[in-house]
C-alpha cells in the first residue's frame, strides 16, 4: 500500500509538472496580456514598462523557470489584474463554487433517485415514459439556454427567485458562505438546479437500469418467493445494491461539477471559481489561469486517489499493490 501510494504521488507530481508546461505554453500562444491589460492610449514607453513590470520581457523558458521556482515555495504568482496572489483569489472564490456543486449534487440525488426508481420498477407506465423523455431533455438542452429560461420564468415572469448573484453571506473561518441564510438559499436554488439538470438525468438513467437489472437477479426472486412485501424487496434488497454504482458516479461527477460550473456561474453572475477563470481568460491573466488549472488537476488527482483507496477498502478483491 505504501509503495503504491508513493508511486501514485510521484505520478501525480509528474502530471502536475506536465500540466504546468502545457498550460504555460498554451496561454503564451493565445496572445499578449499587455495588449489587453494596458490602456489603449498608453504610449510605447509605458507599454515597455508594463511588460517589464509583469515579467513578460523574459524569454518563455525563463518565465517558466521563475514560475516553477516560486511554485515550489507555494507561490503560484500574482494576478496581473487584481495584483493579489493567484492562489488566494481562487481559494476565496472556492466556497461559492463548492456550495453550488454540492447543491447540484444534492438535488440530482434527491430528484434523480426516486424518479429513476419509479421508472425502473414500472418501465411500461406512462409516468416512466415521461421521466425518460425528460431525462433526454436534461442531457441535450444546453446549460446556457436552460439557465436563461429559468431566469426568464422564475425571476422575470413569476418574480419568485432572485435572478443572479449570491445573496447574503455568513463568515466562517474567514470564508464567506451563503448556505446558512434563507436569502442565500433563494439565490442558490436556480443555479444549483441548472447545474444539476444533466446530473439528474444521469442518476435517473443509472438508477433505472440498475433497478431493472436487479429485479431479474436471483436474490430478488428469492426475496419475493419468501413472501416479503414489494416495498421491502424494493427498498432493502434492490435499492441497497444499486446505490453502489450511483454513489461512485456521483462522487466522480463532483469533481467535474466543481471544475466545469463555468457556464452556470456566468449566466447567474455567481461569484465562484468558474466565473473567475472565464474573466481571467478574457484578459489573459496568466497567473490565475495557470493556478486555477493546477488547483483543478490537483483536485482530480486527489479524488481519483481517494476513490481507488476506498475501492480497495470496500472490495477486498481490488488490490493496489504493484505487481513488480
Amino acid at each position: 500500500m505504501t509503495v503504491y501510494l508513493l508511486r501514485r504521488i510521484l505520478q501525480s507530481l509528474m502530471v502536475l509538472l506536465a500540466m504546468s508546461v502545457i498550460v504555460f505554453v498554451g496561454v503564451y500562444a493565445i496572445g499578449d496580456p499587455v495588449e489587453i491589460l494596458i490602456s489603449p492610449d498608453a504610449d510605447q514607453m509605458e507599454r515597455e514598462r508594463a511588460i517589464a513590470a509583469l515579467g513578460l520581457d523574459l524569454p518563455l523558458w525563463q518565465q517558466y523557470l521563475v514560475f516553477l521556482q516560486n511554485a515550489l515555495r507555494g507561490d503560484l504568482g500574482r494576478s496581473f489584474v487584481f495584483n493579489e496572489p493567484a492562489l488566494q483569489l481562487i481559494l476565496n472564490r472556492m466556497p461559492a463554487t463548492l456550495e453550488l456543486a454540492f447543491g447540484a449534487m444534492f438535488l440530482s440525488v434527491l430528484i434523480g433517485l426516486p424518479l429513476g426508481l419509479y421508472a425502473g420498477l414500472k418501465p411500461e407506465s406512462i409516468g416512466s415514459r415521461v421521466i425518460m423523455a425528460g431525462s433526454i431533455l436534461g442531457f441535450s438542452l444546453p446549460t446556457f439556454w436552460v439557465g436563461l429560461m429559468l431566469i426568464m420564468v422564475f425571476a422575470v415572469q413569476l418574480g419568485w427567485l432572485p435572478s443572479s448573484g449570491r445573496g447574503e453571506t455568513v463568515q466562517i473561518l474567514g470564508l464567506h458562505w451563503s448556505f446558512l441564510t434563507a436569502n442565500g438559499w433563494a439565490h442558490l436554488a436556480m443555479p444549483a438546479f441548472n447545474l444539476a439538470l444533466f446530473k439528474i438525468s444521469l442518476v435517473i438513467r443509472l438508477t433505472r437500469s440498475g433497478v431493472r437489472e436487479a429485479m431479474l437477479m436471483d436474490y430478488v426472486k428469492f426475496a419475493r418467493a419468501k413472501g416479503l412485501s414489494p416495498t421491502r424487496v424494493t427498498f432493502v434488497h434492490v435499492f441497497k445494491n444499486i446505490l453502489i454504482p450511483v454513489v461512485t458516479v456521483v462522487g466522480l461527477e463532483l469533481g467535474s461539477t466543481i471544475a466545469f460550473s463555468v457556464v452556470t456561474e456566468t449566466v447567474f453572475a455567481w461569484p465562484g471559481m468558474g466565473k473567475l477563470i472565464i474573466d481571467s481568460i478574457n484578459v489573459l491573466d496568466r497567473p490565475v489561469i495557470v493556478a486555477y488549472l493546477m488547483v483543478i488537476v490537483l483536485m482530480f488527482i486527489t479524488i481519483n486517489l481517494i476513490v481507488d483507496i476506498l475501492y480497495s477498502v470496500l472490495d477486498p478483491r481490488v488490490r493496489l499493490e504493484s505487481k513488480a
Partner: protein
Amino acid sequence: MAINTRGRKLAAGAVMGAAMALAAHGAQAQNLNMAVGAPVTSLDPHYHQLSPNNAAAGMIFDRLINTDGDARMQPGLAESWRAVEPNVWEFRLRRGVTFHNGNPFTAEDVAFTFQRVPNVPNSPSSFAAFVRPITNVEVVDSHTLRITTQNPSPLLPQDLTNIFILDRETHENATTEQFNSGQAAIGTGPFRVVSHTMGDRIEFARNDSYFGTRPAWATVNYRMITNGGARTAALLSGDVDFIDQVPTPDLARVRGDRRLAVSEKVGLRLIFLGLDHMREDASPFITDNNGQPIARNPLRDLRVRQALSIAIDRPAIANRVMEGSATPSAQFLPPGVFSHIPNFAPPAPDAARARALLAEAGFPEGFRITLHGPNNRYPNDGRIVQAVGQMWTRIGVRTTVEAQPWTTFVGRAGRQEFSAFLIGWGSNPEGSHPVRNILATANRDRGWGASNRGRYSNPEVDSRLEAALVELDDARREAILQEAQRIALEDVGIIPLHIQTNIWAMRNTLQHEARADELTRAQDVRPR
C-alpha cells in the same frame, strides 16, 4: 432675522413633519441596487487604467478637475486653474474638504499623489503618462499649487482629470491590496466603501460631509453582472434598479416596458476600420481574384481607400446592426466636443462611384481581401464586420470575414498582421488624443502613434499635432486639431463607421444623468 417665536415653532414643526414624511418614504428609497457590465478589478485608483475602475474610483475619490456628463471640465478639488507662464500652471484648491477619515485635504496631498502615480508596483496599465509632463510641483501655500512642465502644456488640466487625489498621511505606504480590501479606499468623494467582494460587488455608504452635491442614496449596492442577458433579467425581475450597457437585442423590450426608463448619450467611442498603410508591396490578406498575391498594396492608393469607404452604408449598420444605438460618423468626436470638425459628415453610400474609383486605380475587377475583427469586444462587432464584408463584396472587392476573440485579435492587430480590421477607440474629449494615438506616425520617443495599428503616416498631420500640443490658446488649438483630423480623414487614414451611444436602463421612478465617457456612477442617479 425677524421671525417671532411662534412662527419659528411653526416652521420647525413643518420641517419636522416634512422630514418624517421623507424618512417614511425614504426608508426604501434610500438604497440603490445597481449592476454594471464590466468588473471593477481594483479600488486602487492608480493601479489599472480601465473605465470600470475609474467609474468606481469616481464614487470614492475626487480629482483636481472633475468632468460633467458632456466630458467638460468642472472644478473638483481645484476651484480654479490658469497658466501663469507658458509652462507653469497655478491651481487654487478648495478649502474645508476632508477625507472620509476626517483628514483635511491640502496641497501636500496633491504633491504626494503626483509622486505616487508612476510608482505603483506591478501596475499593468499605469496613469504615469498623465503626470509625465510635470517637472516640478511647488506647494505655494496649503491651498495653492504651481505645476511646472517641461514644455508649454495646454493639455495638463485635461490630463489631470484622470488623476484621483489621495491623502498623504493615509496612503503614504498603502498597497493595492489594502485598497482592494476597502481599508485604504479612503477619498474625498461622495461615497465611502463599506465592503468590496472582488469581481462581485462593492457596497457604498454616503459621505455626509461631501463638499459637492449630496447623493440621493444612503447606501449603494454596486454589483457586477458581466453577462448581458443576466443583467437585463436582473433589472426586469426587480433585483436591481439600474443597469448599464443594455445589450442591443434587449433594447426594444426595455424601451417598450412602461415600468422602465432609458437614458442615453452619444459617447466618445468611434468604431472604425484600420487599413494596412505600412506595406508598399503585397499585403498579407490581399490577393487578386485568382488568389495570387498582388505585387503592390492596393490600400496605398487613395482611390481604393475612398472606394472602400463610400461602399459602406453606415446608416444601415447604425440602424439595423446596432438597432439605433450608434450614430454614423466620419470623425472621432461627436458634435459639441472640443475639436469636432463641423460640416464633416460621412459620405453617402455609392456603389457605382466606388466601382469607378476602383477601376481608376487599376482594379476594374476588384480584388480579394480578408477583413478581421474582434467578436467579443464591442457591441455587435462580429456582425458589423459581416455587414461591411457584404458591402465591399458588392463593389467587387470580394471580402472574407474573420472575427476572433479580442484576446487573440488585439495582439495580431498590434503586430500589423492584418490588411484591414475593425477596432474601436474611446477618445478623451480633445482632438489631440485620437490624432496622437491613432493617426500620428508611430514614434517611440515621442510616444506618438502607439495605437496606430495600420501604421498610417502623414508628415502634415504630424506637424500640426506638434503645433497643437504646445498651443495654449484654446481656439487656435482647436482649429489646428480640426485641420489635422481633416487632412488625415480626407486621406482615408482610417475608415470611420459610427460612434456608439451609451445606454443605461432603470426603474421609471429613477432618473439618470447620462455620461459621454461611459462611466456608471451612483451619484448620477436620483429619484424622479
